[in-house]
């Protein structure tokens, strides 16, 4: 058992001081009440934010007038079906596929990579981009790294490519870039988002300055926040203040990690290897500049150019009937919540996910399922 001192140090170190948290909860109630209208909707665009909100039960402390929407912040969830299909088709063509764990279970049109593996395809789970290189060196046969994730993981892919990769390794990029999707969501009439809580870890790379053009264009405030309970509460207080005062600007509430410029060497690596291109995000829309594709200088590594990916091979496989009623798309757009879905917790559970949001540890459905759904607990004395 830790001494009370150790215990306190542990929590303070991690921005987990309940007393300060309560003060911030009060502050959040005050600034929300100042607005004098309901509901006020703000959106975070990060699975890690939803994780922390759910784990610490923060939603039960939010004022009823404040609607904190989970946006398209889970990289696994927004990887689009045709991208999964490309991976599955390649795997069924006999190519080794290396990818991050959660991707293996994401349903494509007809099947997931895990289903393909059960049929004999060679699927390898990796934990870092450099493990794809190690795998290629070991197996000697063609290996495709199905590279997913936002700019944070795209930087790691870029770094590995710049170091030089073996001839038998190619890249199937499904990397996504967050800032453009915020534009899309800001313009969606259904969401009525009045401000954004931006992900602190992505901003360590891009810097908070990246959001300034967005604020200019849309006149909506953006607050960069970290992931401890106090980070999130302080971020929300600041965000609602900015909404109240009608002062759209970018505020960095995560200064212990994030600067205006961000990580310049990482950005240089990122844009040296990738360029933005339009593409669909699952459930959201076509997002101009929302996808990251390999630049022409790295065309020789691009799996889409190196292989003929035969998607017609999947046409014989009937799509699972349940996926028809999956509403992951609406959930990621912030229009619906997991409990609006007829499959949630019934046919669709973490062990047997129907939709992408139930697969990833950052998916809204998985998080709500793990942390006991989403009942309103504000009334218990």
């Amino acid at each position, binding site marked *: *058992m*830790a001494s009370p001192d150790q215990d306190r140090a*542990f929590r303070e170190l991690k921005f*987990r001081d309940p007393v300060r948290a309560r003060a911030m909860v009060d502050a959040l109630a005050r600034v929300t009440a100042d607005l004098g209208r309901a509901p006020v909707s703000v959106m975070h665009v990060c699975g890690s934010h939803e994780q922390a909100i759910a784990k610490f*039960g923060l939603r*039960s402390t939010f004022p009823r007038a404040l609607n904190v929407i989970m946006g398209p912040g889970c990289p696994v969830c927004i990887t689009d079906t045709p991208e999964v299909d490309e991976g599955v088709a390649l795997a069924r063509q006999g190519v080794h596929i290396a990818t991050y764990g959660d991707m293996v279970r994401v349903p494509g049109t007809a099947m997931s990579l895990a289903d393909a593996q059960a049929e004999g395809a060679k699927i390898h789970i990796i934990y870092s981009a450099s493990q794809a290189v190690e795998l290629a060196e070991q197996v000697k046969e063609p290996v495709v790294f199905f590279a997913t994730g936002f700019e944070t993981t795209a930087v790691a892919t870029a770094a590995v490519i710049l170091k030089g990769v073996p001839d038998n390794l190619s890249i199937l990029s499904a990397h996504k870039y967050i800032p453009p999707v915020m534009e899309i969501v800001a313009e969606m009439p259904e969401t009525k988002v009045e401000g954004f809580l931006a992900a602190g870890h992505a901003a360590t790379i891009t810097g908070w300055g990246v959001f300034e053009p967005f604020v200019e264009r849309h006149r909506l405030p953006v607050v960069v926040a970290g992931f401890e309970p106090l980070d999130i509460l302080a971020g929300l207080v600041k965000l609602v203040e900015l909404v109240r005062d009608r002062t759209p600007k970018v505020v960095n509430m995560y200064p212990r990690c994030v600067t205006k410029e961000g990580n310049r060497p990482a950005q240089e690596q990122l844009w040296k290897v990738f360029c933005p291109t339009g593409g669909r995000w699952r459930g959201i829309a076509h997002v101009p500049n929302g996808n990251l594709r390999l630049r022409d200088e790295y065309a020789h590594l691009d799996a889409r150019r190196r292989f003929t990916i035969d998607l017609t091979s999947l046409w014989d496989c009937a799509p699972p009937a349940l996926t028809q009623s999956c509403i992951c798309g609406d959930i990621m757009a912030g229009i619906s919540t997991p409990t609006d879905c007829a499959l949630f917790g019934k046919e669709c559970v973490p062990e*047997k996910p129907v939709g992408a949001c139930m697969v990833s*540890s950052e998916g809204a459905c998985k998080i709500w399922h793990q942390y*006991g*759904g989403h009942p309103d607990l504000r009334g218990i004395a």
Partner: protein
Amino acid sequence: MIRRGLVDDRIGMKYGAGGRAMRALIEQVCLAGLGHGPGRDPAEGIGLAAMDDGAAIRVGDRWLVMTTDSHVVHPIFFPGGDIGRLAVCGTVNDLAMMGATEVTGLTCAIIIEEGFLRTDLERVYASIAAACREAHATIVTGDTKVMGHGEIDGLVINTAGVALCDRVVPDSGLRPGDAIIVTGTIGDHGMAIMAARHALALEGDLRSDVAPLNGMIRAALAAGGDGIVAMKDPTRGGLSSTLHEMAAKGRVGILLEELAVPVRVEVRGASDLLGIDPLVVANEGKAVIGVRADRADAVLAAVRAHPLGRDAAIVGRCLDQHAGAIILDTGFGRRMLAEPEGEPLPRIC
């Protein structure tokens, strides 16, 4: 309420993990045709259908409490104990959780895999003997079998126990307003096993808490009397599973104060690292005691006075709403605590 998903054709590991899946299996298969007899009304005894820690049968004006438990653990020797100590404590504790703290006798049946080292077997038996001495219990009969190499994995020990007592404490007695006491730090056993099993080089001293609790429970019962209304040891599935079961059977909700739950700093560190909530990790030397609010302080003091209960704490109270559910107050906010379904897995493997 058992949902449709839990009807697999083959029995997977999750069906033995002490959570929802295991309860579903027992209700659907094991109780079918056997769940007669006493069970629903504690006044007439406690039988299979009650799915309690053991059975209670009227014998004259006293209760005969019986329980049985099979033990398999990997590794067989782990920091803080071994399979022998576990086998004795598991059964002694199940008796104690029914209110029977004076063990009349234990049985011990052992199945050994061909090729098992004799010296290891001697170590296990020495540990069985030592645990019996601590619990003031005696093994009065046993059985020994050897099976071929690969037919079982190392060693399986079954123990059964009988004891007499004057008042049975079921696990279904919680009422709104009752206090919930946990008798010490949570997650020690499971986290020590996980660290040993996966050869995790974690800092600090992760040790199993496996211990016979009958002495401590005797002190608690002496202090609390009729005020102690429900007891259960939070083994597989951890505190979360145990509270879910007690809440469902007592038809109460439980508000659990996360920051009041004692967790050793080493266990908290390991659980942060592995992504496993200490609330779902097994314990082998802790009890959850449900007690009427006016007796809570007296029981807490009695438990704390015992060497095994020094870190005991009141961690929650029962509500007249959200029956069967556990509401976790994290200190920052509140959420429902989900009941674990299967074995918690470290996210690193």
